[in-house]
């Protein structure tokens, strides 16, 4: 019995604890819906989940990186809208429904560039002026929404070539194209965060920006790039949304904004920055999507799912709080060994 506890303790202490916990919750959710809703565990359900997940998923990845850096980007959804608008505008310039693949490629390029510029502007303000990211991104959000409203006059923009819908609704080997794009982006984000200088800097400055600067890391550039990258990922989300809805409307995905933050926290990202893993966040996203799809099959609407998501986050945070206390108690019990006599620390230790 003691052994079992010890092993359990190791699992929950290790770096994998978050992932193990979230995976267990995911299995639980899947089983629960599988039992209560016979149609849940079918290929169809999973495919529809796979089509729906990427929009929220990409926006969440765009939110993740700024949160890791100790900030927040409240402009992700409207950045996505504006970038989609740029793509739509390019397609319309090149003939609307008759626009070719080249026009599309150009539009995608311009959309990504727009996302980069939006993010960079925010990043520069945050990094060089030290303004609070919540405030900067909030005003950027209001500004972008305004720009979008001014351009679209509150209406829809549609009339795109037929192949655009392939991006939103097509499959490759039964795998939805949006999911493929999401997986690629998620993997790229994972690599950037764990294996590159930017990712390293993001974590470090998320914990303490001054100490990071003293270590010789270019914190201003890194912080700027954090928001640039966030903007680019938001642009990808915007492109996916355009192809899913086959139209652009300012306010599409607006409801996702606070859900992306919720998903990050659910995935164990530290609200103060510095800690968090892409894999956990993706797991959290799948859990949220499974709850939503399961309820949908049971005949409930998305709003019930939204409410449950919130309740679920509270539950997870309460469990984490309890686990934290348990760990602290166990840690102090574990170190309850008799203390060594005062030792002379001047024993020979030379550096070279």
């Amino acid at each position: 019995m003691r052994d079992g506890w010890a092993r359990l303790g190791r699992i929950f202490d290790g770096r994998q604890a978050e992932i193990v916990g979230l995976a267990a919750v995911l299995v639980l959710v899947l089983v629960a819906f599988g039992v209560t809703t016979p149609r849940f565990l079918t290929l169809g359900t999973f495919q529809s989940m796979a089509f729906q997940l990427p929009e929220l998923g990409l926006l969440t990845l765009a939110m993740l990186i700024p949160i890791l850096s100790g900030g927040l980007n409240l402009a992700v959804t409207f950045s996505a809208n504006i970038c989609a608008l740029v793509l739509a505008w390019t397609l319309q310039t090149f003939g609307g429904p008759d626009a070719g693949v080249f026009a599309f490629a150009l539009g995608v390029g311009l959309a990504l560039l727009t996302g980069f510029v939006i993010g960079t502007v925010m990043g520069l303000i945050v990094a060089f002026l030290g303004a609070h990211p919540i405030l900067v991104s909030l005003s950027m959000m209001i500004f972008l929404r305004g720009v979008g409203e001014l351009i679209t006059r509150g209406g829809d923009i549609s009339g795109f070539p037929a192949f655009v819908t392939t991006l939103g609704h097509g499959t490759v080997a039964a795998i939805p194209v949006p999911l493929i794009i999401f997986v690629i982006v998620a993997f790229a984000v994972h690599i950037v965060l764990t294996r590159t200088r930017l990712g390293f800097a993001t974590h470090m400055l998320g914990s303490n920006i001054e100490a990071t600067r003293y270590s010789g890391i270019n914190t201003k550039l890194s912080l700027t790039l954090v928001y640039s990258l966030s903007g680019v990922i938001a642009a990808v989300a915007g492109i996916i949304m355009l192809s899913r809805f086959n139209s652009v409307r300012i306010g599409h995905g607006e409801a996702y904004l606070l859900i992306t933050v919720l998903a990050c926290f659910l995935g164990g990202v530290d609200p103060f920055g510095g800690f968090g893993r892409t894999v956990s966040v993706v797991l959290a996203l799948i859990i949220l999507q499974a709850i939503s799809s399961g309820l949908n099959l049971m005949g409930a609407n998305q709003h019930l799912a939204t409410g449950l998501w919130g309740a679920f986050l509270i539950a997870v945070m309460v469990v984490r709080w309890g686990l934290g206390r348990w760990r602290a108690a166990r840690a102090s019990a574990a170190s309850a060994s008799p203390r060594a006599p005062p030792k002379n620390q001047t024993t020979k230790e030379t550096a070279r």
Partner: protein
Amino acid sequence: MSDAIRLQTAAARPLVLQLKGISKSFGGVQALWDVDFEIAEGEICCLAGENGSGKSTLIKIITGVHRPDGDAEILFGGRRLGALTPVTARQLGVQVIWQDLSLFPHLTVAENIAFEQNLGHRPRWARRGAFRAVAQRVLDRLGLRLPLDTPVMDLAIAQRQVVAICRALATDPKVLFMDEPTASLTKAETDALLDVVRKLARDGIAVVFVSHRLAEVLEISERVTVLRDGTKVGDFDSEGMTQRRLTELMTGATFDDEVHARDRHDAPIVLQTDGLTRRGEYEDVSITIRQGEVLGLTGLLGAGRTELAATLFGLTLPDLGSFSLGGQRMSFASNRDAIEAGISYVPEDRLSLGLVQPQSIADNIVAPVLKRIMGTGGLIDRGTKDRLVGHWIDRLAIKVGKPDDAVSTLSGGNQQRVVLAKWLATEPKLMILDAPTVGVDVGARAAIFEIVRGLAEAGMAILLISDEIPEVYFNTDRVLHMRDGRIVGEYRPRETLMTALEAAVHA
């Protein structure tokens, strides 16, 4: 010897507070073993001990934050107390001035001093006039002046210290604990503070002084209570006690102070500054540091030492003058250029500048040398990183559980080794150490200096900045004295008495 004196004082003045048989364990870790402590009215007592010796646990028990284990006895004014809570402790007149002062920076001086009046959740008016009156009364009692309507954030550190003392006095305390009150004060400010403490004692307040600075401890207190590893070593009369003896009591080890200075005047010059000036910070600074030389830079807080280091490390630009490294004239746009050129800087503030505390030991060590752990495709190579981290952990004998543990889990001494490791990994030509032993136990300090000497022996130039004169005197080859932003003197430890250096600096 000391017992006799104790009896004498106890007879002369009534005891305010007596603690008998205090033990405390946290989840199995024994923080205090059967400690007795007592203090009389108007007495100034010092609580001395290294980090982890149980000082702060003892304070927390006296202030009701923690409850002692078993059959401990707490007597206040001879009356035996039951459970002590923070509220009852305050009501009895036990006040603590914490090291971080615990002030409210955006509130005014008057409101900070009189904040006690705001407490409680029964609504009532917050009367600014009453705050000012209370504050003025306390300041008058100390014979001090402060701008009452200024937010505390606009005050200098020493003034904030006064605010914290006034806040404690506003509640008419019987026992006052001061936790490292002089840690960030200059000599003159410290003297002023010690005067205030004496004044308080004359008014009958029992003062318990906790400080790392042993010279002060001996100067201010009548009696020193030494703790080591959770046990009480004893009560000692301050009269006749020496710093060395006190260190030995605190650490249980003997240290021999020995001048380590060597003559390096024929070694090649590493750093040379020429009339370096940054207005308002330092002026006309021309110094040289040679290969393998440990150059001390001392002077009072605010003399411009740290500011000079900031320029050498590329954090600020000089207004006038120039400096060269290895004969090449340098101009740094940022500290990244300085690191690239071979300059390292260990800042005084290890908690918020030296290390990224919540992040791992490994990440802190590789932060300045990311370029070196890049593998194919510009991605961090985990193997290279692990090898580099392992190498430096071994080399500096850092006692860690796992390299992935947060730096904040380490002791002060081991944290300082991590800082050294991270800079040594950059293979610097010049290492600037700014107050490297602040917050490091006496026992671990010697080890830090041993490492530093080892580095110098291997040819590195070291600039050691410190206001602890003995530290500079015993561990450097040459000492520069800085005052008001200028270099005003140069000393060689083998040719100078430490007292002469002390006299010059504190003049």
